[in-house]
C-alpha cells in the first residue's frame, strides 16, 4: 500500500497529462499542487489538462481543494478545463458529494475517452 504520492507528467496528443500514484491527503497534496503549477507554467496556453487517477486509491478534501483551485485557475487563464480520468467508483462518489463538478471540471472513464472528446 502506497501512503505517499508519486507524480509524473507527460503529453498525449499535445495535452499535458499528470499521472498520479498513491494517496492524496493533507501530507501529500503539496506534491499535486506543485505538479499542477508546473504544468500551468510549462503549458501557459493549454486549454485542457488531464489528471490521471488510475493508481490513486484515496483522495480527500485537501486533494479536491487543490484540483478545484486549479480548475478555477485554468478557467481564468485560458477558459480551460481540468479533465479527471480513471477515477474509481469511490473517488467518483467523493467528487459527487463535494458538489465541485462544474463547467470547468470534467470526468471521463478513460484517457481514450478524454482524448477523443477533447480532440473534437
Amino acid at each position, binding site marked *: 500500500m502506497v*501512503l505517499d504520492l508519486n507524480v509524473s507528467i507527460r503529453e498525449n496528443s499535445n495535452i499535458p497529462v499528470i499521472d498520479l500514484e498513491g494517496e492524496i*491527503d*493533507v501530507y501529500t497534496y503539496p506534491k499535486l499542487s506543485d505538479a499542477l503549477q508546473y504544468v500551468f507554467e510549462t503549458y501557459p496556453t493549454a486549454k485542457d489538462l488531464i489528471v490521471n487517477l488510475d493508481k490513486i486509491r*484515496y483522495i*480527500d*478534501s*485537501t486533494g479536491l*481543494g487543490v484540483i478545484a*483551485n486549479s480548475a478555477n485557475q485554468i478557467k481564468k487563464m485560458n477558459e480551460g478545463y481540468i479533465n479527471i480520468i480513471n477515477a474509481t467508483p469511490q473517488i467518483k462518489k467523493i467528487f459527487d458529494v463535494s458538489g465541485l463538478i462544474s463547467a470547468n471540471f470534467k470526468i471521463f472513464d478513460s484517457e481514450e475517452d478524454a482524448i477523443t472528446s477533447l480532440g473534437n
Partner: protein
Amino acid sequence: MTDSVTIKLTIPSLSDYVGVARLTASGIANRMKFTHEDIEDIKIAVSEACTNAVQYAYGDSLGEIEMAFGIYDDKLEIVISDSGKGFDIESDVTTQEDDPEKIGLGLGIVFMRSLMDQVDYNTSETGTTVTLVKKVSS
C-alpha cells in the same frame, strides 16, 4: 461480541501521521461487518477530522490528536479530540473560497456529514471533539 471494545490511538498533530489514523480506522472497520464502501467512507471521515485538527487546532505549535474507536455490535463510534484553540465550524465552513485550505475545511465537514450516520462537533477555546458514528448495515 456483547460488550463494547475501545481501541485508543494518539498521534502528533502533524500531517505525516494522518495516514496512520486512516489505516488504523480501516483495520478496525475491517474486523467488523462493514462493506468495502463503508470502510472507505470511514477512512475519509477519520482523515478529515484529523486533518482539521492538524491544520487548525494548534497553530504553529505541536500538539496531540487523541482517538478512541468504540466497537459495538451494530456500530463503530470514533471520538477524535484535540486540546487546541478550537474554531468556529459554521463561520469557517465554505467551499467558495480561493484558499485551498479553506475549501479543504469546508469539504471535510461536508464529507463527514455525508459519509457517516452521525457527526457531533464540540469546539471551545480548550479544544475540539468530533464524534463520528457509522452503523453496520443489517
